[in-house]
């Protein structure tokens, strides 16, 4: 049986990636709505940043906040740019790549913490 603390850690680490999948579904089904716009902006701007900043040894709240936005914007920008240069710029493609970045960051975090606790 997995300890509840580990489960909680797993859930928190996977939240950005899970939010990404939810946003992807919203873009597919929600049409042109305010919810869709808010969800997309929120995930693209901060989702990958939240996932990656969790890997860094930073405790300061403001510093974390600034880095979440800076890293989130940078990763989204680079992903969108790469797809635009390759002429495969589709919202779904960019969102999936960002979700994969969030997932990779979550797995890295779990591996790091697992290694530390063992």
């Amino acid at each position, binding site marked *: 049986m997995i300890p509840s603390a580990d489960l909680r850690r797993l859930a928190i680490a996977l939240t950005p990636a899970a939010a990404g999948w939810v946003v992807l579904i919203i873009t597919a089904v929600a049409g042109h709505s305010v919810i869709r*716009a808010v969800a997309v902006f929120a995930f693209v701007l901060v989702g990958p940043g939240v996932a990656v900043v969790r890997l*860094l*040894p930073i405790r300061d709240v403001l510093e974390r906040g600034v880095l979440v936005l*800076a890293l989130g914007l940078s990763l989204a920008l680079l992903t969108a740019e790469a797809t*635009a*240069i390759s002429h495969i710029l589709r919202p779904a493609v*960019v969102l999936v790549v960002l979700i994969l970045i969030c997932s990779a960051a979550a797995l890295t975090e779990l591996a790091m913490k697992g290694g530390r606790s063992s």
Partner: protein
Amino acid sequence: MQEGGLPDRRPPPEAVDTVPVPAVTEAYARAEDKAPTVPVPAVIEPLAPAAGEALAARRRTWAARRFDMAACGCLVICLTLWAVSLADVHVHDVATAGLGLVSVLPVTFWTALGVLTVSFCATVTCRPRRWPVLAGHVVVLIAILHATPAILYGTLRYSWAWKHVGVIDYIIHNGVNFNLGGILGPYQGWPGFFALNSTLTSASGLGSALRYAQWVLPFNDLLWVGPVILIARAFTSDRRLIWTAAWLFTVSNWIGQDYFSPQALAYFLYLTVIAICIRWFWVPGDPVARDCPDGRSRRSRSTRYALAAALLPMMAAIASSHQLTPFMLIAALTALALFREFRHRVLLPVAMTVTTLGWLAYGARSWLGANRSQLLQGLGLPWANASSHVVSEGTVPPDQVIIDWGVRSLSGAMAVLAVVGFVRYRRHHTARARRSWWRIALLAGASMPALAANSYGGEIVFRVYLFALPFLAVAAAAAFFPHPRAGRPSWTALVLMGTVLLLSVGYSLGNFGEESVNYFTPQEVAASEWLYRNAPPGALLVGADSNFPWAFVHYNWYSYTFLDTMPGSSGRAFLRTPVATVANIMKHYPSYLILTTSQAAEINMTGAWPAGEYSRLTHDLLSSGKFRVVYQNANDVILQLDTSHDRSEGR
């Protein structure tokens, strides 16, 4: 002990450099001691020492609470006054007002700004630990200064922002084309910002970036202030200095690069990289780097490299998004490295240089090849580059002269304050802290070499100021708070209030004074939308100048000619015989000439043509019989060359 003839109020060095935040506690204590005391009747027995202390503590708590409530009350009053003022503005007057928004904003707006400034100065001096209250003041300031145009106008301000919307539209439909060339070709060489917004626009289902672009301005200013606070915190733990730096940065940033643009995003990333570098990678033993994750080099080598790796995506994003910012970052990192002011002296400058050169060789090669002569034009000519924007005062209207002197005074005042703060900080601190403080001068001066490289379209002097500003603001804040124990709070608060109010006057002139140029009326936007709906692909679009909502859609379909930029002799010929010249330009068929309110405002403000020339042009064109009106509203008109005369003459 005295130093420089002034009483030495410094604590022993060890107290300053090793005790966290000596500071503010004393300033507070003094402010809280001034709370009104409750009279104690003489008949009451003197209280026991413990009870007396408890009573005094309770009084201080109540005084502090009253202060906080007063500060919050001021915020509510400011927001109310601001809301009332917005309802009183006749926004259509902006287009013709001499000083833009300054001329039309009612007294309630300026009262809100004044009350906010006074409240901030009192709070930061007397209650600096209440960071939520101070943060609330900064957020309200940014809202008042930067959300006002978005709320009032209802249209996107500034013609370049419309162009950026057009680049996004192009990338949504065509992807990135490094070899596109043409009037908007440079953006294809640095497409990062546009690709990001293409994704946001498409994924969110908004259809066009016009739906949110006007709100990006206050968003950018909020973004910028975060890393500026981090930069200030790398030098001091005195919260008065930190929040004053954030305030000074906001009220002296009149350059106007916070609109919907690649440089605004790149600037945020630049500030973040610098903030992280000077906080994480500071050399061991730094007296003010207590809360850095680097933990005075106690972190392992691998952790430090992981922290450095986190900066690489930001560096790559900067290199592929904007032309100038990568070089400013290379200059700042190199300056820190040369003076051995941070770790990774080789890794980070080299990483940024390689990333920048790599992008220039890959994405920007086509544009650089086509514009090589333009790039090398100003090399080694710092004075010519710095003064290339200067026009003779005789050719511009008196309102523009007032604006120019307002912003020059503001910039000069910030430079003077920064020098005073730099010197005062050094006089009040020990050798170790003084060495740390040198970084502020290094970073403020790091952008200066750009003056000798290129005029950047006449804007280089403004960009140099923008990149130096965060560090100037920190140094300027030290003019008021050089040391946690220096000065008397009441005097400091008064001097700070006076200074900030004066700076706000210069800022208001610089930021709001040219809004008659930047504001586009809904009628003007409707005229532009008509033009882009009806002009067929391949058409020539002619304007008196480029200051109108243009190129926001299908920008690769059209070519453009602007009458104010026709070179040399043809420009003079145009002013002598405007009708014949415009008719000659528009022989190319189909072609459209658009004349709008904001074009007239810009030509008048910049003095590009003699006074009255724009009105004469419009009158001559309309009365010549050679053009037919295809669209017209109260102030804007779109003309086409009337070819029916030629056909009938031919018959």
